[in-house]
């Protein structure tokens, strides 16, 4: 893998000579799609990045948000798709490790992990089961060992991910504003490589990730070692406390090539390093192997003479290997030496900034007809349909997964996984809510409305905890960007995220782009992922136990929007129709209204109504509270819809409120006053989940039966499969 002819020409023109083979390797690593964002960068500029809480600084690898009282929260998201598709355990584990170090780079302690996982059809596909099982184990073994709780996430199965895996990991950090790394360096400062030794793993990983997954390139997959990562975290935080760190960057994609060139470029300095000083785990590594190895658990720290001794002592206390590999120079060159000989010398600004591309785009032809479908026949036995929906791996409880993750360590997790959004307590008495959401099925049918829906859903999940969204991260995952139709879906998504973020005034504080996600069968469906953080100033809404007689109030309108729904795809094997569309104005009004009602302490539970529609949302409440319900479908605010559509439409901007009967009047009057579409649709009672239209029962399912399906289906598939 190397540069394109145009890129080679550009490089030669810029440096005024032919690069030597090592220089070419360094540049090729850094100019890979994975490191350089050369296809996407121009388009990402439109995302709104400013906000009253946003703190930005040079060279930050994560977004930084001010949460008041001198504290900050950091957040970042990354994926490790190609490696996980080849070696799910190591790929997923090192995915966790990488994003954790981005959080650490800012000088904050990682306090939470969220993960988004996508695989093929695990009901039929043994390989998908294997990928799923091992990716989960990889995340568990790594995160658990670090003592960073995995507090939430989401999982989707779809045929488009056959023989492939999307493993997205987001991490959240917390710290004092005064401890943020300033990222400044002066001539003569020392460049120190701290952590794991450098070996021949992950060679050329960033280029591997920037191409279609054609051959299983195992040497490109990195090897995880959570124990050393844990020690590196403690070393870095102690070094931070002792003011030993002037600038810092983690080593990820592109290894030393990327870390050195980007650091030098961001700080406006030159760096000279000697590869013979790097601590290695293998003998006779060539300069190019050393420069592009993606061995894990490594940090690059810049310190000065005064603090170098302290930094060394801290490393020695934790027995973490380190090597002083170079010095900061006044020029802006990166100069790589082997012993005394210069083996590469390049302007870091050129290396760190690949020539950007203007890729052509055109609307995919498949979109022209995808909304035109013949509606499926309503099943005769909708009770059976509901049970089938509850055992659908996309809907069934994910407890088999999250019980393998330590989600309590750190004793911050107030609202635990399995809820709408998760909530952490912060040291200043406030609370942070977090959620990531994606939906490849919706995004395939309509890239714009699909991703706006993911954004709205993530916000709704946050709102359910009583939090106000304060920032977002996006992870844009698509197929080969050289295909104009795929590139069009990418551009559509970026514009859509921008529009929603601007309307709701939620700044984009970070993100990542992952392209070339292709399988033997073709590109994956467009799979942008949205992560939203929310802040709760006083106290979060912790769901109260639902009791006999409690009422269900539904907010929002249910529409004929079943395209990409679990009902169409899982029950009827039908891909197409109109996917749900968010009306931003009414959605904002509803979200604000819900927050107001929560702050008044009037609700017992607020639940988002999304995947699987109303029937699934209500069933989950019944299952988790061991109580039945009676819901009248004719009361649901809706367009004129068939019964199955009312039950399973995935229209956005809908919430379920669970309230005590005595609070009904108060709540209804608030909703009326705010002009929020609403209706009291039912009551909790008995042992059956019942939906009726007028007086005829259309669904009746015993709660214990629903429970059994919902709780055990996913685990059952993997443990007995």
């Amino acid at each position: 893998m190397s540069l394109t002819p145009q890129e080679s020409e550009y490089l030669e023109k810029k440096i005024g000579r032919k690069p030597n083979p090592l220089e070419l390797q360094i540049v090729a690593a850094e100019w890979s799609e994975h490191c350089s964002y050369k296809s996407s960068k121009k388009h990402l500029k439109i995302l709104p990045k400013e906000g009253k809480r946003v703190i930005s600084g040079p060279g930050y690898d994560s977004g930084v948000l001010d949460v008041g009282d001198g504290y900050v929260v950091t957040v970042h998201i990354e994926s490790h798709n190609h490696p996980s598709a080849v070696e799910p355990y190591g790929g997923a584990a090192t995915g966790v490790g990488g994003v954790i170090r981005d959080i650490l780079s800012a000088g904050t302690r990682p306090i939470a992990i969220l993960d988004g996982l996508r695989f093929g059809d695990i009901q039929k596909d043994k390989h998908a089961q294997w990928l799923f099982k091992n990716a989960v184990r990889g995340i568990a073994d790594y995160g658990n060992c670090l003592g960073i709780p995995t507090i939430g996430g989401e999982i989707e199965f779809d045929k488009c991910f056959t023989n492939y895996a999307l493993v997205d990991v987001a991490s959240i950090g917390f710290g004092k504003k005064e401890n943020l790394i300033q990222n400044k360096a002066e001539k003569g400062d020392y460049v120190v490589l701290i952590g794991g030794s450098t070996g021949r793993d992950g060679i050329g990983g960033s280029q591997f990730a920037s191409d279609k997954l054609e051959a299983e390139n195992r040497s490109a997959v990195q090897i995880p070692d959570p124990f050393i990562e844990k020690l590196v975290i403690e070393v870095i935080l102690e070094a931070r406390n002792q003011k030993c760190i002037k600038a810092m960057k983690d080593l990820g994609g592109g290894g030393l090539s990327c870390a050195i060139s980007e650091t030098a470029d961001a700080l406006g300095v030159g760096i000279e390093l000697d590869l013979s000083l790097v601590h290695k785990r293998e003998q006779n590594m060539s300069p190019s192997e050393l420069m592009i190895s993606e061995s894990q658990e490594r940090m690059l720290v810049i310190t000065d003479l005064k603090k170098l001794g302290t930094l060394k002592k801290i490393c020695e206390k934790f027995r973490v290997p380190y090597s002083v590999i170079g010095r900061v120079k006044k020029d802006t060159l990166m100069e790589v030496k082997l012993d005394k000989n210069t083996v590469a010398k390049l302007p870091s600004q050129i290396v760190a900034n690949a020539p950007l591309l203007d890729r052509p785009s055109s609307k995919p032809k498949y979109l022209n007809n995808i909304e035109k479908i013949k509606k499926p026949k309503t099943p005769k036995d909708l009770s059976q349909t509901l049970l089938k929906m509850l055992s659908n791996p996309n809907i069934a409880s994910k407890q088999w997964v999250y019980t393998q993750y330590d989600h309590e360590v750190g004793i911050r997790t107030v609202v635990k996984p399995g809820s709408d959004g998760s909530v952490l307590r912060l040291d200043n008495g406030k609370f942070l809510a977090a959620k990531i959401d994606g939906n490849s099925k919706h995004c395939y049918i309509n890239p714009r409305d699909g991703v706006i829906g993911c954004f709205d859903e993530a916000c709704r999940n946050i709102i359910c905890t009583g939090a106000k969204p304060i920032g977002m991260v996006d992870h844009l995952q698509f197929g080969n960007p050289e295909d104009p139709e795929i590139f069009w879906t990418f551009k559509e998504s970026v514009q859509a995220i921008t529009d929603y973020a601007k309307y709701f005034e939620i700044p984009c504080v970070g993100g990542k782009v992952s392209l070339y996600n292709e399988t033997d069968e073709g590109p994956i469906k467009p799979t942008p992922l949205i992560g939203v953080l929310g802040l709760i100033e006083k106290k979060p809404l912790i769901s109260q136990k639902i009791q006999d007689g409690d009422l269900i109030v539904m907010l929002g309108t249910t529409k004929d929007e079943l395209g990409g729904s679990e009902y169409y795809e899982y029950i009827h094997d039908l891909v197409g129709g109109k996917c749900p569309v968010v009306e931003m104005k009414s959605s904002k009004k509803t979200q604000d209204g819900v927050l107001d009602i929560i702050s008044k302490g009037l609700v017992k539970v607020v639940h988002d109504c999304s995947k699987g529609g109303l029937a699934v949302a209500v069933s989950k409440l019944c299952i988790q509270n061991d109580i039945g319900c009676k819901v009248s479908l004719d009361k649901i605010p809706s367009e004129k819809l068939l019964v199955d559509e009312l039950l399973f439409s995935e229209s956005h901007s809908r919430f379920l409120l669970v309230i005590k009967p005595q609070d009904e009047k108060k709540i209804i009057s608030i909703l009326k006053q705010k002009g929020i579409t609403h209706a009291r649709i039912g009551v909790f009672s008995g042992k059956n989940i019942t939906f009726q239209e007028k007086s005829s029962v259309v669904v009746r399912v015993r709660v214990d039966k629903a429970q059994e399906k919902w709780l055990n289906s996913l685990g059952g598939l993997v443990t007995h499969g």
Partner: protein
Amino acid sequence: MKVAVIVFPGSNCDRDMHHVLTDVFHLKSQLVWHTDELPKNIDAIVLPGGFSYGDRLRAGVIAAHSPIIKDVKKMAEKGMPILGVCNGFQILVESGLLPGALLKNTSLNFMCKWTEIIVKNNKTPFTNKLKLDQRIPIAIANGEGRYYADDKTLALLKKNNQIVFTYAEEVNGASLGIAGISNKAGNVVGMMPHPERSAEQIINPNNSKPASLIFESLLNTLGVTA
């Protein structure tokens, strides 16, 4: 009155334990690095949870050879209250301060969930404010949490009243459902569940009072009125 919380490379519940001891129960507590000497003026020792040495070889086995364990053993002989939680329990077992072994859970998976344990000995320094057979809603999080001992050892544990906690439900296949034990003298207690995750109402979804009695027992033992 001062409690030492020992920090091994890879401990990750040390700061949680320190927080609960100092901020919730107002005990003076000090984090002590495993190569340092045990401070002279301490009254109790806690070995916190985590993955010391990344659980390599076997959970707790490498940490059991840390320099500080010699001091811990001396204090154990002198009758000082010593609590090992999760990985701390594994270290106590591996260092020979407690009998038996901790094996992989029967599910073969790491398990993080809420469960209940039952108090079987309320005479230890960490259970003297609890009632016999009292139930404690508590968090567990481990991969190698299945307590195992041979029949002879189990009989001795029973005879000497060394079984401190048992699970109220089948959790991981532990012998006699054991969740925590003590040494013969009763001053050294090891338990797989995490009391420090369960003693604050905001974190414990069930009832934080019983778990907080584990810490109040320690206060009681040390003569601090709670």
